[in-house]
């Protein structure tokens, strides 16, 4: 099947691109929409670096064909970044040294942005269980766990104000 028109809602904006049905959402985001915050590591669902949100649910962009996403709302790490400054998760990752090379970071942000909505006050164990779906070759994970805890506190306190 040759290229077809695909309409995508990404970070609150409508886009129309032309791509073959076999083109993965991760490749469309990076190549057609130039949203290169979504990283691609393994292309079989293991590493988590391509994670985006589909209608708010964290999903592997490498395991979805872009054509499947018509009528859905996609959020990438760019969409979770405020116009100025950093989001609480980003700020906490920065403060806790939760990243070095940053390859895994966008997937961690999209995953935990959704998870903290579901569970605003997670334990270390709960964070580790979720984090097991995002490979990080740099940090050793402890600083990411601390960052998620800190972000959770920042979000809870922010909401309480």
């Amino acid at each position: 099947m040759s290229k077809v028109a695909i309409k995508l809602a990404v970070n609150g904006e409508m886009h129309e691109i032309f791509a073959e049905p076999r083109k993965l959402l991760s490749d469309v985001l990076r190549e057609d929409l130039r949203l290169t915050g979504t990283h691609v590591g393994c292309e079989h669902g293991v590493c988590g670096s391509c994670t985006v949100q589909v209608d708010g649910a964290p999903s592997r962009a490498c395991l979805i064909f872009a054509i499947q996403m018509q009528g859905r709302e996609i959020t990438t790490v760019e969409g979770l970044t405020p116009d100025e400054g950093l989001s609480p998760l980003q700020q906490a990752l920065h403060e806790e040294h939760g990243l070095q090379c940053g390859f895994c970071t966008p997937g961690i942000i999209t995953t935990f942005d959704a998870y903290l909505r579901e569970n605003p006050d997670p334990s270390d164990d709960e964070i580790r269980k979720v984090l097991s779906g995002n490979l990080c070759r740099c940090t050793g994970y402890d600083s990411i766990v601390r960052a998620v805890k800190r972000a959770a506190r920042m979000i809870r306190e922010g909401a309480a104000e």
Partner: protein
Amino acid sequence: MKPAKFEYHAPETIDEALFLAAQYGDDARVIAGGQSLVPMMNIRLAQPDHVIDINNIGGLSYVREDGESVEIGALTRHHRIEKSSELMRLCPPLPAAARNIGHYALRERGTIGGSLALADPAAEFPLMAMLLDAGIMVRSTLGERVIHASDFFVSVFTTSLEPGEIVTGIRFRALAQGEGWGFRWLARRSGDYAIVNAAATLALDSGGRIGRIAMALGGVGATPVRLTALEQSAIGGETIGGWAGAIAAEAAVLVEPESDKNASAEFRKELIEVLLEKSLEDALARARGQAVV
């Protein structure tokens, strides 16, 4: 590598999907969550000419109950099963199984119908389908049928689904009042498929002996297995010192696992003994109303 070319179809009704499935037969693959199919397509282990996306069909994602059984729509995501309060009340092994599948983001997209149709011998839902006498409800343009789990799993990644058939829902037995359950597994890393997994249900009779028991094992052969003969001989037994270990030891003798790159046959037999024993002990504790950690 990237997937090979295919033609994409996005039916909005089940009838339309069945028509497409009948038309393209073996040349088509249904895509549900895509969490197993797309990895296979990305490495070109799967190269279907036609992909039939069932995600736009309404009415395939649900949890229903009638007290004695629970019915789950084929497109119901693992995450929803994990969080379902109805299932936690009526069939708690299913949320426990769902919670253990892969990673958070995979559970948000993967579906129970896809998991059964894939038929990985170490997967959680096929194990539970064997344990809880599931009926797999399938449709084609020729009509509907219900396939019992024991007739559904044929071999590794192979089911008795005919070309053109689509799974629409799965019915599981609900647990009875006073019936306990256990589910144990060993995986190398969080999110990996289990090397071996074991599950059991157990209810005591009025005399405190085993009144009802079911046991299933995964990762020990080409399909998950139900230990029917062993269940028969266990009924009426007492649950005193070493009872669970004795049953599990018999299971390890009966089942003939093979060695592969993940584990030797001997190691799998050891896992059967340990995991089934613990599942039975958990089931007994829950049958007695005790909390299990």
